[in-house]
């Protein structure tokens, strides 16, 4: 009896999930609607998908966003892994508190503030050093890396804190140098977390509107900027089609990584069992 869900909790939980999914489902359903009037059903059609594929503005923006998101994710993973390592493996160093603050603050900082401050930095740098000349892909990537590395740091740090340090210590005792220990032991173990961090950083960059608006320049319209300017004018069916494509990709990604993680977990448990059996 204890620990079971009551009828009331089940109902409220189902309503919560309905609230989460009805808007997404409505976009999916109406993306196949014949009519331009988005919310009146007029028969099944895939014409908005064809129209979307012919929309050069959206296609180009999507390509640019993909490029920025991929570069950003790779950079953020490198920086975030270093920061995660620094915070979890070096207990004491000068300015540790400041670093902890700087890696957690971007997580909760309102985007308008981050965007404004990054832009003012770029303007000041341009005045003093002449770089970056104007704003565009470079400034967007730097800004994205700065806020998404914070998320990667959290992911890596929490993985490292649950990692059995005796493995690393054993390798060090046997004479392996720290870099070798990292590449041979730590990296393979935390690889799923690094992958998760990469995907998270990719998604954050791919979705970002506010920070990008501040630091983008002419000719660097990412997908969210194009969507926002279209959406401000009202609902349009090809945006529904775009949303459906994106939700499908994310759903496939989440389900497959979920399954992969479960398989990993099971394999690890089996390995542990086998090792214990060998010991006896």
């Amino acid at each position, binding site marked *: 009896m204890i620990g079971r869900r009551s009828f009331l909790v089940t109902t409220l939980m189902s309503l919560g999930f309905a609230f989460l999914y009805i*808007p997404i489902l409505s976009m999916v359903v109406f993306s196949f609607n014949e009519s331009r009037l988005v919310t009146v059903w007029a028969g099944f059609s895939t014409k908005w998908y064809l129209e979307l594929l012919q929309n050069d503005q959206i296609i180009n923006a999507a390509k640019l966003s993909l490029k920025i998101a991929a570069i950003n994710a790779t950079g953020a993973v490198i920086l975030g892994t270093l920061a995660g390592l620094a915070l979890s493996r070096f207990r004491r160093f000068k300015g540790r508190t400041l670093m902890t603050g700087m890696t957690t603050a971007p997580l*909760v900082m309102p985007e308008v503030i981050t965007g404004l401050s990054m832009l003012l930095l770029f303007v000041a740098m341009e005045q003093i050093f002449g770089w970056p000349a104007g704003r565009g892909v470079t400034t967007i990537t730097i800004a994205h890396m700065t806020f998404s590395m914070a998320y990667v740091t959290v992911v890596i740090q929490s993985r490292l804190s649950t990692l059995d340090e005796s493995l690393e210590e054993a390798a060090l005792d046997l004479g392996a140098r720290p870099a070798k220990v990292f590449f041979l032991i730590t990296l393979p173990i935390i690889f799923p977390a690094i992958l998760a961090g990469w995907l998270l950083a990719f998604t954050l960059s791919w979705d970002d509107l506010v920070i990008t608006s501040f630091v983008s320049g002419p000719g660097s319209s990412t997908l969210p900027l194009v969507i926002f300017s279209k959406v401000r004018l009202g609902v349009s069916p090809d945006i529904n089609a775009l949303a459906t494509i994106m939700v499908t990709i994310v759903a496939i990604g989440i389900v497959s990584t979920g399954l992969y993680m479960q398989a990993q977990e099971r394999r690890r448990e089996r390995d542990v069992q086998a090792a214990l059996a060998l010991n006896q």
Partner: protein
Amino acid sequence: MILAELVAWIRAFGPYRWASNRLSDWGLTGRTVVIGIPYLWLILFFLIPFIIVLKISVSDIRLGMPPYEPLMQWIEHQVVTLKVNLGNYAFLFEDALYRNAYLNSILTAAGSTILCLLVGYPMAYGIARTSPSWRNLLLMMVMLPFWTSFLLRVYAWIGILKNNGLINNVLMAMGVIDEPIVMLQTDFAVYVGIVYSYLPFMVLPLYANLEKMDLTLLEAAADLGCHPIKAFLTITLPLSMPGVIAGSMLVFIPAVGEFVIPALLGGPDSLMIGRVLWEEFFHNRDWPVASAVAIAMLILLVGPIMILQYTQGRQAGVHR
């Protein structure tokens, strides 16, 4: 591991030895690099920008690019004068527009945080009390909207709330109403948008907390004849307070500065501080006032951010 092979191979290479010895002579060890690179990056691209915002918030507006006066000026005989203009801040206090935007942001963020808690708590509780095999699926379902575009999820509500949108169409077809209810471009729509967008941020920390709870406490209460509702109020709810606080702060803090939701779902009079900053910056091109708005918003958020860091630090401490 190919990587390790590669590392070993580079190691054996003479010039590498030499370079690495020189580097450690200068104090550039692996440790310095691991700490130094992210540290320098964060100082350059996170800390310094805030100092610049602070600086520009006390400078004067001017025409040109960049549209603000330099703070320090070389005047004749090379005397440095420091020109501090607190007028931008005074302006924020005097102008009713800013005061209202400030107040409205806090009220909207607080109201939607409470609504988020009311919707999210039963969800987190329900998931934590589901069998482990289903639990992962449900958690994945909470995460999925978080991974899909924020902008598009807000956009979805336009189609639902507008005058000829989903809700009005359904209600009119059922004959409940004759005239469409105006929901889009109202504060109601802003609340719905915030609760909807930030719900995963509420559910996940709550779940993490409720899942760890010791159920034998509830068993003991039941054995001693305690009513389940009373047991919930006296045991579960107080124990889950760290989760409640963490979730609430994770919703409240970004909601205060929210721009996209009031811009797309709110009416012209649903002013929030994030939107005011945006308008000042992009439309009025008044960078000093925009910076002052940013600093004022930060001052407002320092308290909640500290509370969040404290509860998270304590939770992490419990783990160890």
